[in-house]
């Protein structure tokens, strides 16, 4: 699921860096706000732990082996902010020191694997485990589901990023410039591997570790313990009057491009028939194609700027950022519900 350099266009990389940057900024602010400098070595060592876990070979039922990432257990123990930072740091070191994984695509990798997976894992775990006692089967089950879903969500985002490449970035002859597979191919191809194999690996590690910790050190699983990790996970969100506005914005940013996309123009884009080819080789027709993907459903009386390619680019940027915002807001809402209900997380 780690995307190497060259698979994503520079503009996609820039958008993804922005998305990841938002995640980093929010997480760092959280760490600073807890005024707990103790978290710095804690997150660091956890990042090292993630790095090592990524190298463990996990045998799965059916004879295959796979690798887990450890982001899901990080989210359960450290909370999403800590997990975002820890996993991002592990990914950065993989790229910068071990030369493993792209640097231009570091933003995308961090967004998919650190941000999305952490948020999904934490949200799932809290939702399913809710009030269950620390040492209960339910928690183990919750963590398995959390791990499974988190990895698959990350894979889905990766697949979408891949799948959008040929649609947006091809030359006038129709040659895809980066990742060459459309959504129709990329999504099933990536998801199959993760739904069947990698998701299970993450679920296995996450559940295995929760079960282990339940006996070895349950305090680590509890946000009520005095540890620094718990402080990070359990801090209640201060209610924000601007929150509603943010939610609306996020939903808009997320749904609008998605809605347009769902109009069907993108999905049937590529056919397997070798007969289709592009009749025109001029740049303007390529741009026109780009614009129509997002804007085709627009009625004839819409102003011309709406149909331009730049607007299409803008929409894809909104899509990414909106998704992330919506995700984090959703999680915050869950937190709030947990803490105001007075339940044990």
């Amino acid at each position, binding site marked *: 699921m780690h995307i*190497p*350099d*060259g698979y994503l266009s*520079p503009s996609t990389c820039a958008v993804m860096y922005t998305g990841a940057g938002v995640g980093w900024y929010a997480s*760092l602010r959280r*760490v600073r706000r807890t005024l707990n*400098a*103790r978290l*710095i*070595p*804690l997150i*660091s*060592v*956890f*990042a*090292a732990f993630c*790095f*090592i876990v990524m*190298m*463990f*070979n*996990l*045998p*799965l*039922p059916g*004879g*295959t082996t796979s690798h887990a990432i450890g982001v899901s257990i990080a989210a359960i123990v450290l909370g999403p902010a800590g997990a975002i930072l820890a996993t991002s*740091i592990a990914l*950065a*070191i993989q790229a*910068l*020191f*071990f*030369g493993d994984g*792209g*640097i*231009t695509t570091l933003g995308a990798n961090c967004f998919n694997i650190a941000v999305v997976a952490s948020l999904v894992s934490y949200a799932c775990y809290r939702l399913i485990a809710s009030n269950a006692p620390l040492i209960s089967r339910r928690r183990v089950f919750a963590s398995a589901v959390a791990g499974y879903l988190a990895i698959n969500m990350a894979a889905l985002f990766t697949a979408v990023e891949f799948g959008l490449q040929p649609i947006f970035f091809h*030359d006038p*002859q*129709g*040659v*895809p*410039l*980066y990742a*060459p*597979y459309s959504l129709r*191919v990329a999504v099933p191809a990536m998801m199959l591997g993760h739904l069947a194999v990698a998701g299970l690996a993450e679920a296995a*590690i996450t559940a*295995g*570790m929760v*079960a*282990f*910790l339940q006996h*070895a*050190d349950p305090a*680590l699983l509890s946000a009520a313990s005095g*540890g620094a*990790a718990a402080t990070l996970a359990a801090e209640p969100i201060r209610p924000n009057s601007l929150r509603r506005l943010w939610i609306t914005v996020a939903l808009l940013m997320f749904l609008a491009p998605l809605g347009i996309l769902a109009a069907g123009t993108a999905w049937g884009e590529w*056919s397997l028939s*070798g007969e289709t080819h592009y009749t025109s080789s001029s740049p303007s027709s390529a741009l026109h194609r780009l614009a129509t993907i997002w804007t085709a459903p627009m009625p004839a009386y819409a102003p011309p700027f709406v149909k331009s390619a730049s607007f299409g680019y803008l929409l894809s940027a909104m899509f990414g950022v909106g998704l992330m915002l919506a995700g984090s807001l959703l999680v915050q809402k869950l937190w709030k519900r947990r803490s105001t209900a007075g339940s044990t997380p």
Partner: protein
Amino acid sequence: MSRRGAIASTLVGLSTALGNALVSETIARKPGWLQSLDPRVKLTGLLALVLAAALSHRIGVILALWLGATLLGLLSRVSLPTLATRVWLAVLLFTGVIALPALFLTPGTPVLSSPDGKLHITEQGIVAATLLITRVETAATLTTLLALTTPWMQILKSLRSFGVPQEFVMMLNMTHRYIFVLAESASQMLESRNSRTVGILSSAAQRAIVARTAGVLMGKSIELGNDVYLAMQSRAFRGDTKLLTGFRMTSRDFLALSGFLLIAMIAIWLGRA
């Protein structure tokens, strides 16, 4: 799944990765061209070249950048076999496999068709696959050169001077440091498990061992993290670190930087749509 089992192959993986890391430290200390540059110049310059390769629409330009990168490597005492084994082969295998279906799946003008007319290899498919592979190879070569010729500490200090928040830099450093500590712990645990096992374990049993090891490792990690914090406090740390700055750009560095940027811009211009 190899007969060695998951545990044994994990051990091999760990020691290979660490072995590679030690090799890079050796290369980083050799008297080569890239090693002699200010790390900020290297970071900026090499990333500019990666960007140029990423932006180019022409295979020729990308190949030229690849050649240039290889030359830089040779000038910096990074041998061809090193590059081949560490970068080129791995990329070819991985990306090659991924790019293969693109030959058939990319719509366009057919170049080769199967007898029954169902499968076609298109011209666009060939170009797309080649573009992808060359791009990935070039970018990987450049980033590996960066990693091989720059000591970790210098990478961190350059990041700091580029404005990356000090908490990040500190965490990057400590993580890097403790990867080695934890890797050793993990290896020892897995080795002792391995030696105490007779016969071949079922996959479920192996899974249990790996999860267990991960669990113990995590406990150790947290304990280590807490103890490190105490040690830092004991030396007057309260959340903000002060670093010794030591970078000074020489005229040679400026020349190199201009060279990098010029080449990148030419490549971008030549490779434009």
